[in-house]
């Protein structure tokens, strides 16, 4: 760390970080890149087409285990599309076609013998809008373990539900009303419920598509804290529009622009010394 960045960070903190572009850099600069360096998902030359339109062009990226990787970039740059490739959610769109290699723990997930359903159990996903099932909290969390046969008894299922809710930092708030509908919770609670639901299937990778965009700042802070904790056990990939958020929660950041991944590096480096001109312009708010 250089003195200049430190000074920047201090001044950013004095401005309380609200809306100031520099604050993202400041937050990022204060972080220590604590990555394991182990590659969880290895992507080579991934192209995605929607019909004739190419949405993702030749993206190659190594997503690390036990780290939070953030995808940032202006709207329509393809970061969500790429995220949805990682658990083959794009398969549900008829006209979508994916080429290239995405290797999870040594196996290509687009191999013909890979069952997308099984894959999605290993690569969990949290969506932009909280989307709990209109069922009880307990049923929401227990659904995944049930369909994948993770629990052999009711007691085991109960403890999976409890631990998942605890991991999602929701247990204390809902432990007395597990039978009440999940849709009755507040927005932030709903999103944490969705995270608990994803965690309950014991995935190895957790994909988050703008998980805080529908939440207020307090709920956002809770979810971010949670993401930081989840990093201990999972590889977390998060798409975000908020550069402050990327800076706060991620260790690695990838910058997408017009379907290309322009830059991928340690979060601290991206926000303080981006090597690409577009990245520089984006994080300083000159476009996007």
């Amino acid at each position, binding site marked *: 760390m250089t003195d200049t960045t430190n000074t920047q960070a201090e001044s950013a903190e004095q401005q309380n970080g609200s809306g100031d572009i520099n604050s993202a850099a400041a937050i990022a600069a204060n972080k220590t890149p604590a990555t394991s360096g182990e590659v969880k998902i290895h992507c080579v030359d991934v192209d995605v087409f929607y019909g004739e339109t190419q949405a993702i062009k030749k993206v190659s990226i190594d997503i690390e285990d036990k780290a939070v990787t953030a995808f940032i970039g202006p709207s329509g740059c393809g970061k969500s599309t790429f995220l949805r490739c990682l658990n083959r*959610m794009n398969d*549900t769109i008829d006209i979508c076609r994916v080429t290239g290699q995405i290797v999870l723990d040594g196996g290509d997930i687009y191999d013909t013998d890979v069952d997308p359903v099984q894959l999605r159990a290993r690569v969990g996903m949290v969506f932009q809008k909280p989307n709990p*099932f209109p069922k009880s909290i307990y049923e929401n969390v227990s659904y995944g373990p049930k369909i994948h046969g993770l629990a052999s008894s009711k007691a085991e299922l109960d403890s999976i539900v409890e631990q998942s809710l605890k991991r999602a930092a929701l247990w204390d708030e809902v432990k007395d009303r597990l039978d009440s509908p999940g849709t009755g919770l507040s927005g932030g609670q709903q999103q944490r419920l969705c995270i608990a639901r994803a965690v309950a299937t014991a995935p190895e990778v957790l994909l988050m598509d703008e998980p805080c965009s529908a939440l207020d700042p307090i709920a956002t802070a809770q979810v971010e804290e949670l993401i930081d904790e989840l990093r201990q056990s999972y590889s977390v990939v998060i798409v975000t529009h908020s550069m402050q958020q990327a800076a706060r929660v991620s260790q690695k950041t990838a910058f997408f622009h017009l379907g290309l991944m322009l830059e991928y590096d340690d979060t601290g480096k991206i926000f303080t010394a981006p090597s690409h001109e577009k990245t520089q312009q984006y994080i300083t708010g000159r476009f996007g």
Partner: protein
Amino acid sequence: MSTTVDFTELSAKHTGEANKSRLRARYWAEVRLKAYGIAAIGVAAFALVLLLSTIVGKTAGVIYEKYITLEATVEVSDRDRERLADENPRMRANLRGVVQDAVAAAIPGEIGRRESRQASSIVSGDAGLFLGDQVKADNSIIGQTIEFDALLDDNMQLYLKGIVGRPEEIKSTGPLSVTAPDEDGIVTATFDPSDIGPIFEAVREQRADDAERARAEQRRQQNAVDVTEERLLEAETDEERAQIQTRLDNFIAARDRAEANADELFRLATVIGEDVSYTLSESDPSLLMRAGPGWLKLTEVERGRATGTIYLPLSDGDAASADFAEGEWQAYIMERPESTRLQTDRQVVWMENFEDRGLIKEVLNTRILTQSDSASAELAGIWGAVVGSFWTMIVTFLLAFPLGVMASIYLEEFAPKNRVTDLIEVNINNLAAVPSIVFGLLGLAIFVSGVPVNIFGTEFTIGGFLPRSSPLAGGAVLALMTLPTIIIAGRASIRAVPPSIRDAALGLGASKLQTATHHVLPLAMPGILTGSIIGMAQALGETAPLLLVGMNSFIQEPPADPLSPGNVLPTLIYQWNSNSERLFDDKTAAAISILLIFLVLMNALAVLLRKRFERRW
């Protein structure tokens, strides 16, 4: 080329005089549109009120049914005694004789052979069976004299409800004296010449109408005469002339006859009630006289004097001449001539007498709900049709609902979007608009009759596996008709389930099938059920396709299972409506009311489901 526009000038137009009138025109247009809307709603509301009031008004006529309280000694034949002792409830005894004797006993005085037929048709044809049932329930009353209620014949019930009119009282002030009846029961009554004048008025009007008709006939014949005379002048040969002359003579004779007839009728019309005696015919209004406990029917009238037949004895004792002071007697007129109604004057008099004696009873009509169809209007009920409708609806639901749900889930969740599925979608939507009778024809051909096929000399029949008239066949046809409705409703409500729910399930690693059955279907179910109930309600009111598969048969017992012949409420309404017996009119209205109640209940259930489970995303 565009011209330059000065926008300041345009702005000035907002405040100009032209603008004011434009504004006025706009307001006026709004007022007009509102008025049209209100008028349209008014017309619709009026039509609805008219419809409902007609139905409810007619239904009111069958809410009660009329019984007569009779007294009889229950004497049964040995054969009937055996049947009455039999445990089997289907072994019924018809104690018609007992009931007929009881009716005869209830009528004061002697009744002759011809009158006894009229007497026994006062009560329902099944009154003997009902008495038999009563005796069967309690064999100890055999041989005893009991009082029992006998259901009145539909014509008598209609009479008591005043459908054909009741005798109207005529002013009568002076005394009346009646001679002793001769051997034919004919008497002569004398009264104040100023009495019962209005009666003559009514008869006179009737005759004047007839005379007018005779006069018209005379004019028609005159016309023929005129035309033929002209032809005669134009005729060229003698032979032709002779032919025409013969025709002319015929016409002239006919005209003279018509003229004489008309003159006579006009003369009669003026002299009725005068000193000349006038014989009343069956097509004249009936003139009746009540004197003391008895009744007379007048057959010949003149001023101050009338000849009549004793219908009920005027005194309790032996037949002799009798005098009645003012107030002890009363003259009546039945405007409707005896020949145009199904109640004879004798029966009218009897019914009046029974009512005066308090023998007529009004009982809440549960028969219409608990009994099945019958040829006699007073016995007919809807129960068989309700059971038939129930079986039909069960079959329809069991066939259409699973098929509809499966089809809609497949089309929405699994089917690839291509030309074939587009074609299927368009066709399903078109099927919903196909006239129901077409489904009836299809069902008749495939389910009931079967389609004969001849391939390379081998003849066989495709289909034709369902029995005609059965709720199974009817239900299958209605299922064909309801299927598109359910599919359309099902697809709409499946589409209304937000994609985020599917994403959530798929993101957790649920398969497409699991996503559909665990999440999409349960969420769409209220909507699918609502659509299905509306489709079923439509099917419940459907008539045309069921007529084709023979569900309009005359069936007197409720179908025990979906394979037995039965009919349904709408076809029963159709049958009853085409029945000539007047009481069936009212029963038709009652059946319509009940059908409407069912439909309203089903629609209410659909609304309730929608309200209860409606979810906003």
